[in-house]
């Protein structure tokens, strides 16, 4: 098991390095700089600003200095908000995105798995048709369509829920963004669960469990569900990546102060250090979740560890 984790972590190191390197040089290749504004700064002032942040040094030198900083856990100061460090900004925005992502993941899993199981148990029944309808809807109607429609219905028309804003993460403000973010994932999860359950229900050990006279609930929950969940566990990594991507749009539509909303703005403003910090955080998150998915897979299906 330890070797398994070790091997996965070995891939993580180079990946992070590639992420940082690509992002660093792409950001610097972009025309314009963090100190451009409507009113051009006097050249002397701009020169001083650049010197202060070390932007006047040769690019390779800056790159190595940045890498050194990241290794020590120092992401540097923000270039656009002189009184804040990147760490301050991350601390301020990351909890919003994390709370949103976690709530969506839980909702997607709860809805996806239960719908998938029920659909498999009552094949071609109303629930099955409904579940597959949801699966198609989740795939074909993107978040930037569901979000405005839900806002129009529950926000503007019925006025049950706020149209947007975070309000410290109050429940009414969370409901719509979480639903919108969870829907595509719930759709995929329900499809995976249904397929896995149908296969598991036809397997020999389930027939044996039935023949032994076990109650139906025990057969389904204890014997069929476990093998059916294996493909689901390996989907956790991609699902997390999907949630991160979705949060870019959802945070923009609902005007939530999370990482996603801030990322695009910072990139457009050429706030180099903030963009880099966010990319590193995202990359670490995706890598960790992939690792977690692999570990859970190894727990659910011990054969995986050997291969």
């Amino acid at each position, binding site marked *: 098991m330890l070797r398994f984790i070790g091997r996965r972590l070995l891939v993580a190191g180079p*990946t992070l390095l590639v992420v940082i390197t690509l992002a660093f040089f*792409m950001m610097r290749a*972009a025309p314009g700089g963090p100190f451009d504004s409507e009113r051009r700064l006097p050249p002397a002032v701009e020169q001083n600003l650049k010197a202060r942040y070390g932007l006047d040094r040769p690019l390779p030198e800056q790159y190595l200095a940045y890498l050194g900083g990241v290794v020590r856990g120092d992401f540097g100061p923000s270039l656009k908000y002189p009184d804040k460090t990147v760490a301050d900004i991350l601390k301020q925005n990351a909890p919003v995105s994390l709370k949103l992502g976690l709530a969506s993941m839980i909702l997607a899993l709860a809805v996806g798995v239960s719908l998938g199981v029920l659909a498999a148990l009552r094949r071609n029944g109303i629930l099955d048709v409904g579940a597959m309808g949801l699966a198609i809807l989740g795939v074909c*109607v993107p978040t930037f*369509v569901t979000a405005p429609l839900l806002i129009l219905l529950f926000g*503007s028309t019925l006025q049950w829920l706020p149209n947007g804003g975070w309000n410290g993460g109050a429940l009414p403000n969370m409901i719509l963004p979480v639903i919108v973010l969870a829907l595509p994932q719930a759709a995929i999860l329900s499809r995976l669960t249904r397929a896995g359950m149908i296969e598991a229900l036809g397997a020999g050990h389930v027939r044996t469990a039935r023949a032994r006279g076990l109650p139906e609930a025990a057969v389904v929950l204890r014997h069929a569900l476990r093998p059916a969940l294996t493909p689901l566990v390996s989907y956790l990594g991609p699902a997390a990546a999907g949630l991160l*991507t979705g949060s*870019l749009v959802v945070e923009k539509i609902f005007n939530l102060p999370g990482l996603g909303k801030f*990322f695009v703005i910072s990139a457009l403003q050429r706030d180099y250090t903030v963009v880099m910090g966010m990319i590193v955080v995202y990359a670490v998150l995706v*890598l960790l979740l992939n690792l977690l998915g692999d570990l859970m897979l190894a727990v659910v299906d011990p054969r995986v560890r050997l291969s």
Partner: protein
Amino acid sequence: MTDLATHPTPAARGRSLTDDAFARLRANRAATLSLGVLVLLTLFALFGPLLSPWPYDQVNKDHVWVPPLTDGHLLGTDALGRDLLARLAMGLRVSLAIGLVATLVSLVIGVAWGATAGYIGGAVDEAMMRIVDVLYALPFIFFVILLMVAFGSNILLIFVAIGAVEWLTMSRIVRGQTLSLRQKEFIEAARAAGLGRMAIVARHIIPNLLGPVAVYVTLTIPAVILAESFLSFLGLGVQPPLASLGTLISAGAQDMEMAWWLLVFPALAMAATLAAFNFIGDGLRDALDPKDR
């Protein structure tokens, strides 16, 4: 079982595996219907502008937010008085084109990479697939956004950026298939006949990969269309006055309380396109691999 009894298979005429697959595809109602929808959507994208007397980018300040079926605007007009029908056809054309071209890019890179790694095997395979592993773990949408921010959003860059993201899964699928094909007797025979490595890859491996690749291609096109509209929604994709389904939906979402049609029609076109490609992809997979059903 009753099926077999009532519909005896016609004897005598031989049937190839491809015939079988096509028969199964035709029997799949969702897939055939989707194929029809896709043809209609393509025709609309190509010839839709002829249905409207206005060009897609003609601004008319006196005809702002005209509802559908009024003053000759079948689908109404937008906040600048531009005809939605013409814009929708244009947007669909751009989205389909991006879907096709970016998928083609990913297809070429993915098949070449995967087939080479799988066929050569050994240390080369190991190294090539580790590179894919590393790239796979990148939060790619962020790099695409950086690319758009860095070099400005022109359509060519969108093709390349999205295509460069999507080839990874393709290369994995192709490699897996190649590994199993390599063991087959007809490859052995080709090698015994003195064919070179590259010739075997080009003449024997790649043609046999067509099935799984075709399935993945039909599923990649909607993913690409979705990715592009995602960028457009963030303001980083296709730039005005050109439109894609993403920019139309984005604009429609802003004005939806005044003009519902600006959101509803582009969203419907988007949903129909994505659904059609997904059903055809699923249908193809079932047709080519009946044991998966």
